């Protein structure tokens, strides 16, 4: 079975603050890391590959340093990684990202199953997986909590539909996004670390390498959504702070609860 796992390198923390006067994002210098939700997709892929004697390739899009994230996937068990890296991809929204990834997948050759994390911790949209599936013309399922079984024709999975769990069989090829805590992700292996040559096992592809790439659909240019502005969340304007003895404060609180008809 040929598996592809889509991964992303994300900031180590999302604790950013904005300087309200200059509009500059103040990012702490914490290193980037592999999107934690991707770990569950990777674990699912490694397990399925082991059961079927298959292969796992990982795919990412990002700046040159995103190679680090792909290297980590090799240490965990991936056979090879592909990084889409080009200024032409920069500034991509969900639509342009999934378009670029779809070209990357086609370049990587045949596959039976694509796995993604449930979402990323930075973009947080949970949309790239389903959009990628649509661009590849395959079906998808999101919030997969369990793999129930598999045969030549397809895979049976259980998905979380908020108030219910639905078990369904999907024909290959298809795409799944794996829910958090669907399994226990493995750690990078020290033995693999020693033998893996990341330079050889990670291919970097630019827009020129992707056959039939329509440049008007890539990067910022190809993004239907545009960020008009960013701003800090507002604090509560009508704040009120009360001090006094316990009795006074209890009275004040009781008065407020009565006034607002909570009692």
């Amino acid at each position, binding site marked *: 079975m040929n598996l592809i796992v889509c991964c992303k390198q994300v900031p180590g923390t999302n604790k950013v603050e904005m300087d309200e006067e200059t509009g500059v994002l103040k990012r702490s210098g914490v290193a980037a890391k592999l999107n934690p939700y991707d770990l569950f997709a990777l674990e699912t892929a490694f397990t399925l590959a082991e059961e079927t004697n298959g292969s796992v390739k990982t795919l990412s899009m990002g*700046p040159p340093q995103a190679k680090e994230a792909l290297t980590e996937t090799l240490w965990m068990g991936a056979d090879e990684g592909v990084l889409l890296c080009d200024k032409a991809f920069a500034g991509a929204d969900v639509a342009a990202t999934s378009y670029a990834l779809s070209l990357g997948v086609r370049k990587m050759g045949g596959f039976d199953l694509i796995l993604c994390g449930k979402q990323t911790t930075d973009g947080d949209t949970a949309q790239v997986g389903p959009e990628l599936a649509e661009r590849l013309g395959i079906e998808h399922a999101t919030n997969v909590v369990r793999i129930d079984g598999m045969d030549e024709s397809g895979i049976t999975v259980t*998905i979380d539909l908020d108030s219910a769990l639905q078990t369904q069989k999907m024909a290959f090829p298809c795409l799944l996004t794996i829910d958090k805590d669907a399994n226990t992700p493995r750690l990078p292996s020290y033995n693999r670390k020693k033998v893996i040559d990341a330079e050889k096992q990670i291919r970097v592809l630019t827009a020129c390498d992707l056959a039939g790439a329509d440049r008007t659909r890539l990067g910022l240019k190809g993004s239907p959504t545009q960020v008009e502005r960013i701003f800090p969340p507002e604090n509560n304007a009508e704040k009120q702070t009360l001090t006094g003895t316990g009795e006074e404060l209890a009275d004040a609180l009781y008065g407020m609860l009565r006034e607002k008809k*909570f009692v």
Partner: protein
Amino acid sequence: MGLVIHQEKITKEIAGQLQAVCPFGALEYESGTLRVNAACRSCRLCVKNGPAGAITWEDEKKPILDKSAWRGVAVFAERRENDVHPVTLELLGKAKELAAVTNEPVYAVLIGSETGTLANELPHYGADRVFVYDDPAFRRFTVSPYAAAFCDFIQKVKPSSILVGATSLGRSLAPKVAARCGTGLTADCTVLDMKPNTDLVQIRPAFGGNIMAQIVTPNTRPQFCTARYKIFSAQPRSAESGGEIVPMPVTDEMRLSKTQVFSIEEKPKEIDISEADVIVACGRGFSREADLHMAKELAGLLHAQLAGTRPMIEAGWLNPKRQIGLSGRTVKPKLLLALGISGSVQFAAGMKGSERIVAVNNDPNAGIFEIAHVGLVGDLYEIVPKLIERIREGARNV
């Protein structure tokens, strides 16, 4: 469209200033040339805050879109058992506000099997027309048939904006449909507004809620977004129903699916603090587990759900289902009473949407006072028993 670097103006010093302004480390300076690398997010802070004229933003002419060909604000009506999901009614309320700006109609699209009279209810909440795709193929949610029906609706009705509830189903379906329509999709909007030119202003939190991003989809239609349950408010049910129900033909093509549903199993009913109207939340201000009985008693009197911060759950004092915060539940009650809670960023992220936050904490510098509407600086061990007493007295005097 993009950044243009004016190399003739770039010196080592100016390059350094520009690099300092870039939050993404996307500017590389090497042998006298400044380059933008793939880390660029096109935030344009280098244009705005860097040395003037060193980097500029050049717009490219886009093919002009005939926005007048797309009219109306549509809401995806999600079926939930024998009802529609309540987020549908909230989105209809929002859609009515948005559509009023440009005097356009509000649509609902209902996809399901044996929908019966469900569609009839939607006009009471603001839908001018309800388009119904009713077929056994839609009995269970599988993505291809639902996407096919949804796209059929978009092609035929051409709504300018579409709102979808950010439920598991909505978050799976909306990206499939948006991708097929070649348009953008903004997830989890918390504020929506309409410009007079029918551009939908979509505001969503980014970076774990530390930054708000205002997003538009100016060059494609329809404009597509999702919003979570309990973000917007439904309008009160109006007595008269002026809306029209439009049954839509279902074709064999729409019924095609490579997914076969075997079974569906209701999850056991669980404690769900995210549905509560009133919440009494406890934090480390409680020094012993036994003292939580005060909070429980107060919660009982206020018909409230009891909830807590992560340390309360880790100590084993409260059921994990009662945890508020990034690693717990997001709540949006009408009243949230925070007792002895310091107010970490992670906790705040799960309750900031509450209509009224009242905090009791003996530390006047506690972070919770930053987000509380009413802050009481005092000892919860004095205030809570007194408050319980007052409520009991009040109940007797009625």
